[in-house]
């Protein structure tokens, strides 16, 4: 027992490994938010008039909104006038080869274990690496462009593919959607844009790594993915942020449009700085992610492994508008120390015979609070809709909390909706069994948690699954005393 408590303490006191600061000069604008700042951001990015107008409308709307307070989160007062809304690395933001990239930046990625260089080529991954806000480097662009696939930064997309961006930007997450979506629409700095044309299967995993680097800057990513009829893409997003004592705000928006017969898999490993073991610092991660299955037989799958951030507010959702479309949500959320997470999904069934599946695995340790919040709504016309939700919580230690808030709203009589949830701890029997077979308690805990999360981890692409597994055990790692 003594040992066990020691281990639990070690685990729950585990500190953030990726806490370091990269010393790169950054180009910032004054603190605060007003119409001028919005115009300045737009001007710095050399945006067309319509984009500036869009931002201003979003800003005007944002001013009318209160910050949402319904989540099971204790969010300290945020002074939105004390945030720097734009920061770009001051180095020339366009590279033709790796040699031109700031070596220190490359070293940072190296430390994070991000295989940006040749390893990436072997792994077959194209990376649109984002350092703070401006896209630094895009690889494999040529290979992709041969197939007609557009994969570039949002800034480039606004410049080079204005018609596509105008058509789809804000079509799934309008700036009126919520407080953070409005904020993002007003000040988003950059992000990724991806368009897969009709009938094209994207031959490689597309991935973007995000970092927050400049002190005191908010990060407002904007991602838009469009899979045209019959297209397929698997998109990976992962992030690790260096340690900061100041809280940093992250309010990203991801929009996904899936047309008839198309499929999009969106996977995330989120490891922003969670704050120290006393709950000091850490990222506030207030993200709006939503996709729409517009056409028949469209499929959208969200997979997330959430281990970071001091506060997470995130509900990757699927609007199942097309008949026979399928939405999936697989999530592992691990909170430790003083972390708080309120995460889940919304499955909105509008089309006939639409199906959705939710698998959520929450793990709470330390003094953290971990909530699942999910809505399953079956509209009047969604004949034959089906949903199954499984939400499990695992508690490690007696000072944490695990909560489940499902919302089932059914307005069609042919629908079948099922929700199940369980709460458990790692049993002493399990630990004893593992100990008896020679495993240390620490390894046993990692093993058991890995097994608990297996169903979700299996949904990740191979290379990501390994990283995620590593992240889970790192988050649970401790030295046996």
């Amino acid at each position: 027992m003594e040992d066990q408590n020691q281990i639990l303490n070690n685990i729950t006191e585990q500190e953030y490994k990726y806490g370091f600061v990269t010393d790169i000069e950054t180009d910032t604008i004054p603190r605060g938010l007003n119409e001028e700042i919005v115009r300045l951001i737009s001007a710095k990015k050399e945006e067309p008039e319509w984009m500036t107008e869009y931002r201003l409308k979003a800003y005007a709307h944002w001013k009318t909104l209160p910050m949402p307070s319904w989540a099971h989160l204790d969010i300290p007062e945020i002074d939105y006038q004390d945030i720097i809304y734009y920061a770009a690395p001051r180095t020339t933001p366009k590279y033709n080869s790796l040699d031109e990239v700031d070596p220190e930046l490359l070293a940072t990625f190296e430390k994070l274990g991000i295989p940006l260089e040749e390893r990436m080529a072997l792994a077959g991954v194209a990376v649109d690496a984002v350092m703070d806000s401006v896209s630094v480097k895009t690889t494999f662009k040529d290979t992709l462009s041969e197939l007609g696939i557009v994969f570039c930064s949002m800034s480039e997309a606004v410049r080079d593919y204005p018609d596509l961006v105008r058509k789809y930007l804000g079509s799934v997450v309008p700036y009126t959607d919520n407080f953070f979506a409005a904020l993002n629409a007003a000040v988003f700095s950059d992000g990724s844009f991806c368009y897969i044309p009709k009938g094209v299967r994207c031959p490689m995993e597309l991935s973007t790594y995000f970092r927050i680097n400049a002190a005191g800057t908010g990060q407002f990513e904007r991602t838009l993915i469009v899979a045209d009829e019959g297209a397929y893409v698997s998109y990976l997003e992962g992030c690790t942020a260096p340690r900061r004592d100041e809280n940093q705000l992250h309010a990203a928006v991801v929009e996904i449009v899936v047309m008839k017969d198309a499929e999009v898999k969106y996977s995330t490993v989120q490891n922003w700085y969670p704050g120290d073991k006393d709950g000091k610092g850490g990222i506030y991660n207030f993200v709006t992610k939503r996709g729409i299955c517009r056409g028949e037989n469209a499929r959208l799958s969200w997979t997330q492994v959430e281990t970071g951030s001091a506060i997470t507010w995130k509900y990757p959702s699927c609007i199942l508008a097309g008949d026979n479309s399928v939405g999936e949500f697989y999530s592992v959320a691990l909170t430790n120390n003083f972390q708080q997470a309120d995460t889940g999904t919304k499955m909105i069934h509008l089309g006939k015979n639409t199906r959705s599946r939710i698998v959520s695995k929450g793990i709470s340790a330390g003094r953290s609070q971990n909530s699942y919040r999910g809505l399953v709504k079956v509209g009047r016309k969604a004949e034959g809709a089906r949903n199954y939700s499984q939400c499990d919580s695992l508690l490690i230690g007696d000072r944490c909390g695990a909560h489940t808030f499902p919302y089932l709203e059914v307005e069609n009589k042919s629908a079948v909706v099922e929700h199940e949830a369980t709460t458990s701890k790692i049993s002493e029997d399990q630990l004893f069994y593992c100990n008896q077979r020679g495993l240390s308690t620490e390894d046993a805990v990692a093993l058991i948690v890995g097994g608990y999360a297996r169903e979700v981890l299996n949904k990740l692409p191979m290379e990501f699954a390994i990283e995620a597994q590593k992240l889970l055990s790192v988050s649970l790692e401790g030295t046996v005393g």
Partner: protein
Amino acid sequence: MNRSVEQRLLDLYVANVDIVGEGFSVGLNSQRREYIEAFNLAGIPDRKDERYGLSDLRTLFDSREWEHYFTPVQLSALGGESLPSSRYRIEVNNGFCTETELCRLENGVVYGSLRTALQEEVDSARLHYNTVADNKGASLTALNSAFMQDGSFVYVPEGVELDEPILVFHRYGAGAEDVMGFGRTLLVFGAGCRARVQLIHAGDHGEGVDDRGSYLADYVREICVGEGADVHLSEVSDFSGNCHLLLESYVSQETRSRCEIHTVDLGEGTARLDYTTDLTGREAESYLYGLYLHGERERCDVGVTVNHLVPECRSYEMVKGVASGEATGSFTGRVYVAQDAQHTDAFQQSRNLLLSPEAHIYTRPQLEIYADDVKCSHGATVGQLDAEAIYYMRQRGIGEDEARRLQLHGFVNDVISHCCCESFCDWMTARAERKIATI
């Protein structure tokens, strides 16, 4: 109608403060002022309220100019309805007990008018009144506490085993106007006692119901279950379409006590049934079986909150709903496990059948857990009658309608069949069958 509901109720209270408080102790009356202020502060819950949102109570309160009478009214008997037989019986009309004298049995059991019990300073009433419902921050409960004039009261002393159930019969009815009323029940069970209570909420089914106004009942019940006591309650609400019942039931259970509640809503109007149980002593066990059966444009919202405040308690809730016609059913459940309430065993299940294109079901079973060594689970389903089972029954020669009826009966049966005594079960089953035939 320019004044807000809250303001109108406050004005009503101020204008009638002397009538409301007549005969009650100074202490009790001084609390009323605090309650009406608390109500005003919190206001009628609106759609944004997590706990009440599904009910849209504000619209209900705003829908009419509700009158309130501060004196008992005469209500006609249920038209031709038979009630289950019972030796011990309390009748309450629009919140007022029909008998002012308390019944005192040889074994020490006391039952009857809550007003009399409080005014005669019966200890078990005085000491427990407003101890369970207090501090819940629920505005409707505060409103009730401000306006409370009468209701029903039961006291079963320590160690007493009550041979037969006590029947508390609530009847609601309006005259030509739309009427609002406040009902109150206080049930006090001493340590180690065993008792059964049946509660019926019925509308005034007399002549000319169609010409009558609506009735809105804000009803609050407190139940104190002493150490090792074993209490079984069965409750039926079955009233006509012009009745709206807002029920808030609070239970507080001490060590090793057991409390089982069966509640069935068959009413044609709107019902909001809210059950809160605090498990305050170790090894307490709480069971709740709920059922609502609704067609037409009926509506029922069931809320269940179980607070595990200490270790080693057990709770089980199974709430079943059937919505047909244009009916709406909702369930909001919450299992709260406090820090250090280890070895909690909690289970909550919401099962629903949606039988028509215009019907709606909303369900939110929620877990909020702050202790790690617990066994908690919940589940929710929304579906239809099983087509395979219908086919199977038809293959055995059972007609399609009969097959549906049988399956519906099967669905509701386990809630009804476990209620507190056989004659009441039969009575409840007959009424449920009648309701099933209409949906």
